[in-house]
């Protein structure tokens, strides 16, 4: 049934060649359309007609259009009715129709009669035209041709406007406008809006009219004159005095102007109480002419968020981004593009593999946000929503009066003085012109500024990473005044502590910074020290400023804890020892000093802890050469500074008359760089044998290498230690000799190891212990030797250890022979020979005394038990016997070994090596790569 278009095109082409009076053609077309439609109705039933509406509706619409144009031609649509010229034309047309054909002459409703009737009177035309239009719209709507229906509706609206019934026209115009807006057709939108504006003006819908006018005034599809005229409409209304002064007309801002960006000064949008904040906004006016706006206001919502760390002064001043500029997205341009609201497709690939052989079954693309994309578009309502723009009334408003908005970008600056601390969120932007208010209901993205109030604060922190004890160190004092104004005469009172000095210099200066870290001024700082208190008088500073100054402090640790009679002041190692153990051995020992400071703004004192680190770590060691003894002190610099060490001294406290320390180092001054160590060696000499234990007191003066001149004399660094039992009692010699007949040792061949242990001294105090046994003529002690080769160069054959009974008298010697086998060729170091004191077991643990007797008793009881129950189950007896054995094993007391102090044994052959040649019949060469 596609003959309708064909018919129409035939009509149009046929008609073109003939010249006819105006309107005659329209009449003919109208008649033809209706004839055809009537014929169709005549030969089809209702259902068929309904199903073919799509094909016939074109004719209906065509007929409507023609009737409309005839109506306009004959002056039937005008308000006043047809004039004489119109009437003449009507008469001509009616005459041109001729007489009705006989076959339809008798029917009540024929196209011919219809046309004749319609053209004969205004009322009849209206009736017929409305009938046709409504029928067409209905048909279009029923088959889903919404756009066509709206278009016919617009024609109808035009007709109503001419007939002075704008209230009827409005519905059709609004409907059409909604459709065009939803689909983004700019020109039809503009045209329809223009019609709508006219309609609303006639209806007296002031608010709607002004809104449409503002939209049209900013419409770039209109000419400059048209836009200006619409703009003037608004301005003239705004200039008019209204009867009810309280009544305001609230219109959305987006048609009038567009908020482009917003800038805070200070840029982080954080001000203290009493501070001045300025907000600078850029507004793009879309009006074609400059507009004088009475007032532009930003409504601000105020909220207090207490107990929120994020709202404290510290957090705000540090963490708020200093961007300052907030840009707002451009709102929908004159022709809204609805697709912008659609989210982008989120696609991901999908593979489906068969579970049996993992081969690919299907692949595909999945759209993850289908629910967003396929959502029903509730268009229209949201696009031109004018309702719901409510003017918020709040106590907090930023205002700017009498601003002229030029077309294009305008900059408006608001200034405000912060009063109450809290968060202020900018909510609405409102431009008022008399009774007309243009309101941006929501400022999005949200913009806010914060006002804070701060308590005065004192912060003390070291300039360097860590403070070093013993040398002058700089400490920075920062006073954040907050809401407190520092007056002349205000001072900080530092309670002095003995171990820390505050060094006063004449030229101490304090710098005052403003809240934004700009230097405001600087002033001299007066520091006065008395016995108990150091007073620092602060320079006068206004609120919300910072005073910064530096002071030098020197940590003086308290007097030596290990009470020596010598009055040596200075740092003492034992004092730190207990802390040292808690920390990693390579880190510096620290001490804390607590300083209490009285501030003028508070009745409470501030306690500040300063941690000082000891720059050095000292170790000592005893070195032996036969019977001669040396003491080595190692001073390790742990800090990052270089130091000069001078006047090193080691004094033997106590029975110093018997001990003499001869320094072997010559330099009086030593330079010790960062992370390096200096060594000092003394030879220990004594006048009385055995020598008394050494209580060493080491002291060394130190000063930082970088600073040549120091204002204060520094105390030396001291270290105390004790060395006991350093007198050599035994000397151990080990010797390896090749097997008899051979010149050199060979790998795999047994060699003999001879260990000689020699006693060097007679009975001494230190020998008197449990191991000492007294026989008829001499004392003897038990020693255990052990040959260990940790480097696996030697295989010790047979017993590698044993217990010897050593007579306690000088030059007593014990020799031990052993067989060892070299495993490798080359110069091999000798295996170690270790010597221990062998303490008998019965004296080992007093709590486990009579262990032997207990074992014996137990064993007896087991025996007895077995005897008694000879014929009982063997399992039980065995079980009990087993338990006895295990307890026996557990309770077996072991003899104790006690290591001899390092000074008492001297290993003569330490460091000697033996040449081992490879054996000739070595077939297997073992290569180990490590």
């Amino acid at each position, binding site marked *: 049934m596609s003959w309708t278009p064909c018919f*129409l095109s035939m009509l*149009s082409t046929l008609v073109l060649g003939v010249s006819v009076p105006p309107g005659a053609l329209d009449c003919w077309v109208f008649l033809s359309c209706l004839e055809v439609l009537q014929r169709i109705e005549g030969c089809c039933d209702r259902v068929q007609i309904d199903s073919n509406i799509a094909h016939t509706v074109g004719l209906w619409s065509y007929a409507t259009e023609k009737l409309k144009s005839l109506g306009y031609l004959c002056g039937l649509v005008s308000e006043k009715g047809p004039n004489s010229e119109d009437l003449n034309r009507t008469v001509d047309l009616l005459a041109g129709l001729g007489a009705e054909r006989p076959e339809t002459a008798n029917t009540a409703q024929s196209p011919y009669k219809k046309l004749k009737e319609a053209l004969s009177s205004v009322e009849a035309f209206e009736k017929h035209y409305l009938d046709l239009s409504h029928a067409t719209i209905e048909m279009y709507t029923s088959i889903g041709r919404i756009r066509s229906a709206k278009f016919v509706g617009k024609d109808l609206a035009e007709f109503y406007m001419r007939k002075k019934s704008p209230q009827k026209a409005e519905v059709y115009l609004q409907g059409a406008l909604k459709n065009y807006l939803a689909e983004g057709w700019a020109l039809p939108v503009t045209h329809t809006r223009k019609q709508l504006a006219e309609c609303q003006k006639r209806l007296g819908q002031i608010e709607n009219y002004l809104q449409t006018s503002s939209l049209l005034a900013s419409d770039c599809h209109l000419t400059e004159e048209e836009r200006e005229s619409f703009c003037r409409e608004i301005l003239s209304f705004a200039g008019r005095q209204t009867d009810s002064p309280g009544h305001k007309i609230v219109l959305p801002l987006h048609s009038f102007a567009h908020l482009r960006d917003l800038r805070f000064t200070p840029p982080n949008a954080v001000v203290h109480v009493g501070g001045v904040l300025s907000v600078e906004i850029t507004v793009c006016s879309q009006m074609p002419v400059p507009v004088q706006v009475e007032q532009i206001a930003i409504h601000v919502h105020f909220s207090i968020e207490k107990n929120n760390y994020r709202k404290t002064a510290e957090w705000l001043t540090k963490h708020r981004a200093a961007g300052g500029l907030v840009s707002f997205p451009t709102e929908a341009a004159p022709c809204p593009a609805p697709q912008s609201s*659609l989210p982008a497709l989120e696609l991901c690939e999908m593979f489906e593999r068969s579970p049996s052989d993992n081969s690919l079954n299907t692949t595909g693309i999945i759209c993850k946000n289908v629910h967003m994309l396929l959502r029903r578009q509730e268009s229209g309502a949201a696009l031109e929503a004018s309702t719901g723009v409510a003017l918020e009334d709040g106590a907090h408003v930023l205002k700017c009066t009498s601003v002229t908005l030029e077309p294009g970008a305008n900059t408006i600056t608001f200034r405000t003085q912060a009063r109450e601390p809290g968060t202020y969120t900018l909510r609405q932007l409102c431009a008022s012109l008399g009774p007309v208010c243009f309101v941006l209901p929501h400022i999005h993205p949200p913009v806010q500024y914060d006002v804070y109030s701060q308590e005065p604060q004192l912060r003390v922190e070291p300039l360097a990473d860590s403070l070093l004890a013993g040398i002058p160190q700089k400490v920075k004092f920062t006073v954040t005044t907050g809401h407190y104004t520092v007056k002349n005469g205000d001072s900080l009172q530092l309670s002095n502590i003995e171990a820390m000095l505050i060094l006063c210099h004449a030229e101490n200066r304090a710098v005052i910074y403003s809240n934004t870290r700009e230097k405001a001024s600087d002033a001299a700082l007066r520091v006065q020290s008395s016995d108990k208190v150091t007073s620092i008088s602060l320079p006068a500073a206004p609120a919300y400023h910072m005073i910064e100054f530096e002071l030098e402090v020197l940590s003086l640790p308290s007097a030596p804890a290990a009470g020596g009679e010598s009055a040596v002041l200075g740092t003492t190692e034992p004092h730190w020892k207990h802390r040292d153990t808690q920390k990693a051995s390579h880190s510096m020992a620290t001490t804390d000093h607590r300083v209490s400071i009285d501030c003028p703004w508070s009745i409470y004192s501030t306690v500040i802890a300063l941690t000082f680190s000891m720059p050095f770590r000292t170790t000592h060691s005893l070195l032996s050469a036969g019977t001669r003894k040396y003491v080595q002190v190692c001073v390790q610099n742990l800090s990052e500074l270089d130091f000069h060490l001078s006047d090193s001294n080691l004094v033997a406290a106590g029975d110093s008359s018997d001990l003499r320390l001869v320094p072997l180092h010559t330099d009086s001054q030593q330079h010790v760089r960062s992370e390096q160590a200096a060594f000092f060696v003394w030879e220990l000499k004594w006048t009385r044998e055995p020598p008394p234990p050494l209580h060493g007191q080491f002291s060394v003066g130190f000063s930082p290498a970088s600073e040549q001149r120091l204002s204060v004399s520094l105390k030396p660094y001291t270290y105390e230690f004790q060395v006991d039992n350093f007198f050599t009692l035994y000397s151990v010699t080990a010797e390896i000799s090749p097997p008899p007949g051979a010149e050199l040792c060979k790998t795999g061949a047994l060699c003999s190891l001879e260990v000689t242990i020699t006693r060097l001294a007679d009975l001494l105090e230190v020998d008197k212990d449990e191991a000492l046994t007294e026989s008829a003529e001499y004392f003897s002690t038990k020693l255990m030797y052990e040959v260990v080769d940790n480097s696996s160069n030697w295989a010790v054959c047979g017993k590698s250890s044993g217990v010897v009974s050593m007579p306690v008298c000088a030059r007593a010697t014990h020799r031990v022979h052993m067989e060892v086998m070299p495993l490798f060729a080359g110069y091999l170091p000798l295996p170690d020979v270790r010597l221990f004191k062998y303490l008998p077991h019965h004296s080992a643990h007093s709590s486990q005394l009579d262990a032997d007797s207990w074992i014996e008793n137990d064993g007896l009881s087991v025996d007895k038990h077995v005897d008694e129950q000879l014929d009982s189950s063997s399992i039980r007896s065995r079980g009990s016997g087993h338990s006895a054995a295990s307890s026996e094993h557990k309770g077996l007391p072991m003899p104790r070994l006690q290591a001899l102090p390092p000074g008492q044994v001297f290993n003569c052959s330490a460091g000697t090596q033996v040449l081992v040649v490879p054996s000739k019949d070595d077939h297997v060469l073992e290569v180990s790569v490590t």
Partner: protein
Amino acid sequence: MAVPLPGDKTVVAQNYPLYIRSVPTESELKFHYMVHTSLDVVDEKISAMGKALVDQRELYLGLLYPTEDYKVYGYVTNSKVKFVMVVDSSNTALRDNEIRSMFRKLHNSYTDVMCNPFYNPGDRIQSRAFDSMVTSMMVQVC
């Protein structure tokens, strides 16, 4: 002679113009209305052949509807981008085949626009190449 050539894209129920141009600019509004109304017919035709297989589908929709003075032709790409062309009905030189080839040219040019990585699908077409192609087509027809 007026040849407004809008490319219309459909996303669900949205039909907003990607490109629209007409030669006598004074009656531009009329053509906008005409093209907009013609989308009804385009939609109808698309839904009518929706069941046909994609590769067998005819992209050219043919004459959408005639009016007294103009003929409106339609074309739809596989991605449901609609082309509508309004030509003067007195121009008898434009037969179905010419219209078809013009649509094909438009389609090719549109494909080029889509290939531009800086073109955001759905934005208004502001390509100079597309512009000049449309201009040349209009000149040729007049």
